């Protein structure tokens, strides 16, 4: 049996020897507990009690350009007060942290986002406050946000790098010379203004649950991701389009935040029967269309009961294709085979070709 604690100690020792112990960066020195002393090592990992591989490496370069750069580790991992420490508890993203917003003087918390999420279709509790069936399947912050697309990456002249482009921030620095205000404010604002996330990656986040056959079975859902990928929207995104709607564009009411997605049965949801038309006609999309356009069925599974028109059309085309192609491919096959023995036949027709000539002459005379 694998000894978890022992493995952790071995890995820790190994990484310390390989990496060398020392305070290499100024950021590390500033840390109250100097967490990076251990967590800077790429090999820092263990197999947890459930047999899952856990990696504890922190890429400080990424962290320093991420949204939590002004937080100390301890601001979120409140239960850790010494090193070496025991396995840390899960972070509660709704707790108030020590950050003061640059725009005002209020202390920051993600609590209101968590409240919005709990009221949405993704909330763990139903309208009466009771847990929904398969409560554990419903997402919380990290289920979506712990995805590669949330890495702080800047693209300048087609080259992707961590953090802020020096060229982009130079303008801000021309006035905001002191401290980190320019960096913090620039990061805070631009990460929200720009659509920095590729639609493909957003689809991958949703696919984590909605393309999982077991998950869909448990919740009696159709595979929303595969069916979406069958539409022109999905296909254009696969080919690199940046102007085509992804999941969020249709499932979030225009102007609302992404955490407020609701079931299509809720009257205020973007995909409710009465609102779908407005969703399609949202700015930059099908502005000239009639709300009837929303009658287009996006998530078609070709199920006979649910989508009879699509099912029978598909069957019709498949049958037609099979008949035409099998007939002609068989013909080609036999024609090639016929060339093997061109003169052979079970019954010979040795009538001379002259009778054809006579027939033709007779026809010409008749005319």
């Amino acid at each position, binding site marked *: 049996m694998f000894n978890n604690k022992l493995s952790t100690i071995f890995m820790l020792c190994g990484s310390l020897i390989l990496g060398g112990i020392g305070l290499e960066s100024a950021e590390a020195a500033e840390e109250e507990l100097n967490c990076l002393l251990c967590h800077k090592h790429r090999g820092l990992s263990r197999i947890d009690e459930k047999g899952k591989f856990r990696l504890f490496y922190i890429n400080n370069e990424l962290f320093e350009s991420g949204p939590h750069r002004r937080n100390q580790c301890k601001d979120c991992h409140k239960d850790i007060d010494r090193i070496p420490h025991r396995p840390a508890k899960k972070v509660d993203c709704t707790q108030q942290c020590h950050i003061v917003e640059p725009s005002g003087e209020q202390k920051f918390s993600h609590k209101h986002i968590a409240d919005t999420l709990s009221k949405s279709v993704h909330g763990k509790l139903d309208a009466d406050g009771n847990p929904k069936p398969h409560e554990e399947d419903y997402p919380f912050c990290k289920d979506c946000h712990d995805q590669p697309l949330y890495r702080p990456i800047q693209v300048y002249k087609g080259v992707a790098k961590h953090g802020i482009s020096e060229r982009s921030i130079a303008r801000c620095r021309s006035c905001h010379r002191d401290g980190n205000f320019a960096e913090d404010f620039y990061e805070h604002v631009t990460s929200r203004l720009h659509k920095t996330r590729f639609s493909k990656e957003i689809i991958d986040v949703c696919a984590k649950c909605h393309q999982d056959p077991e998950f869909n079975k448990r919740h009696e859902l159709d595979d929303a991701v595969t069916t979406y990928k069958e539409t022109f929207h999905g296909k254009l995104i696969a080919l690199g389009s940046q102007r085509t709607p992804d999941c969020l564009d249709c499932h979030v009411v225009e102007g609302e935040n992404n955490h407020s997605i609701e079931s299509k049965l809720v009257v205020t949801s973007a995909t409710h029967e009465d609102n779908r038309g407005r969703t399609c006609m949202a700015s930059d999309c099908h502005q000239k269309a009639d709300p009837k356009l929303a009658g287009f069925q996006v998530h078609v599974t070709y199920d006979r009961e649910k989508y009879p028109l699509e099912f029978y059309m598909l069957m019709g085309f498949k049958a037609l294709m099979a008949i*035409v192609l099998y007939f002609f*491919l068989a013909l080609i096959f036999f024609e090639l085979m016929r060339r093997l023995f061109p003169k052979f036949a079970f019954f010979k027709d040795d009538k001379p070709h002259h009778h054809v000539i006579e027939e033709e002459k007779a026809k010409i005379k008749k005319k």
Partner: protein
Amino acid sequence: MPTPKYEPIVYKDGVRYFYRFSAHQRLQHIVLFTSVLVLALTGFPLRHADEAWAKPLYDMLGGTEIAPMIHRIAGTVLLALFVYHTIYWMVKFYQNHVRKLIDEKRLTPWNFTKEFFSQEMIPNKKDFYDIIHLWKYLLYFTNRPPRHDRMSWREKFDYFAPYWGIPILGPAGVILWWRDEISHYVPGIVFNAAYIMHTDEALLAVLFLFFVHWYNVHYAPEKFPAAKVWLTGYLSEDEMIHEHYADYVKVMVENGLEEEIQPQHFAGEHYKW
């Protein structure tokens, strides 16, 4: 513009060639296959967007911004050609058939119908017997291949394939293109139907063209690497004997060459590699 006169038989390098298609018809075929190839190249990466080859090919053709525009231009050309050819065919039908009936004062609905079915591209009873005869031949029940007229049933199938494909693909393409405008007049599910019609009929058309039509004109041993009739408009004597024996005999008799008529053979008997 008067129709250019084509000799029914010409000689080149000691080989006899038989007239098949006018320059006007050959030009229409060039426009047809060019637009179809462009449509297939700009359409199939989208249909199979998840395949590894799709994105590089689509990017080469202009990517998600330009390739759809090229696709729509090619589609417009193809639809225009479809309309043009239909008018061309109606004019030809009038010149070669209806006017004769008018001149002879025999224009009745029955005679009109008879003339309609006497056109060389219209399928008839002989085609049905030719198909049965061909299968008898392919399964070694007879040593004689069918004697096709000027247009064999396979050519008629090839000819009518666009007449069945374009009325399905074209309107569906227009609906998907002008979806916002058309949504004012039709329910949304029409777009689902148009999507299936456009993508699945396109697959059938392309598979048929690339496997069956290209076998007939490219891959078949006696045609490889490519038949020339689409360029020259003339078919060699060997090919005439193999593919259109009834018409070959007729043309030879009409031109007083009945003594030189060769017996029927099948291409497998003497390849010219």
